[in-house]
């Protein structure tokens, strides 16, 4: 429990402090990049899980993650195209990607039930961190109404993922 919580706090701290370090609220092109990156990360994690797991619940959960995050990201791409905005890489996106790559490598070494548990725990922590960042930083900072609305839809669906991940993680204990 402590490990999970502290991982979430650390991840969220990373997410917000990297942005704050730039001394300003993230701009819309940066927000779009962060949100898209966060989705790509979870899709990659789910694909790793699909390749490694033989647990039915984990498989179903990972399939949900791929389906939903791809849907949000497709919508995000359509929106930036429509708004003629180019997503802008930034420190937050970079630290998210770096962290995720480390996590993928760490999980790659695990097998069977050990992997399932670690994946589920990380999904809880990750969605908590992303939901926290959406709620307190990304949504309030977004200036374009359509971007804000898409982020709100994202938050709603990711909160469901967080609950679902908690449920899956609890069932593995």
């Amino acid at each position, binding site marked *: 429990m402590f490990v999970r919580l502290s991982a979430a706090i650390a991840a969220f701290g990373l997410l917000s402090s990297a942005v704050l370090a730039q001394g300003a609220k993230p701009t819309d092109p940066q927000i779009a990049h962060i949100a898209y990156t966060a989705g790509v990360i979870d899709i990659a994690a789910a694909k790793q899980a699909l390749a490694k797991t033989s647990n039915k619940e984990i498989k179903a959960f990972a399939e*949900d993650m791929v*389906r*939903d995050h791809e*849907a*949000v990201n*497709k*919508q995000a791409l359509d929106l930036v195209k429509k708004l003629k905005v180019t997503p802008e890489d930034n420190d937050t996106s970079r630290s998210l990607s770096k962290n995720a790559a480390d996590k993928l490598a760490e999980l790659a070494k695990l097998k069977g039930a050990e992997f399932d548990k670690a994946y589920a725990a990380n999904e809880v922590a990750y969605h908590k961190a992303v939901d926290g960042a959406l709620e307190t930083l990304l949504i309030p900072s977004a200036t374009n109404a359509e971007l804000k609305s898409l982020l709100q*839809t994202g938050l*709603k*669906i990711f909160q*469901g993922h967080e*609950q*679902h991940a908690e449920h899956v993680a609890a069932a593995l204990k």
Partner: protein
Amino acid sequence: MMPRSTLPIVAVLVFGMSFSVHAETIQISMENLVISPAEATAKVGDTIEWINKDIFAHTATARSGDWDVTMPPKKTITLVLKKAGTIDYYCRFHPNMKATLTVTP
């Protein structure tokens, strides 16, 4: 040969009967991860039209196991009701989406 005066009555009866067996279409939307209306009633033979307005795929999955309908994003899927009962259903992908359908005979 029927007396003239009974003809309109027969006509009303026939019309009334065909009217009462006429199946209806009931629309239920799935929008922003909410099923609306959350409580609906229908009769056996009626058609339920689930309208998925979200960018996400949803399902209407009966807890009783009677039916399990998958609707792709932005698509409408129909189902003809064959069995009476009060059916709780939910979306398998987003279990927070729940609703009840009461089907009368």
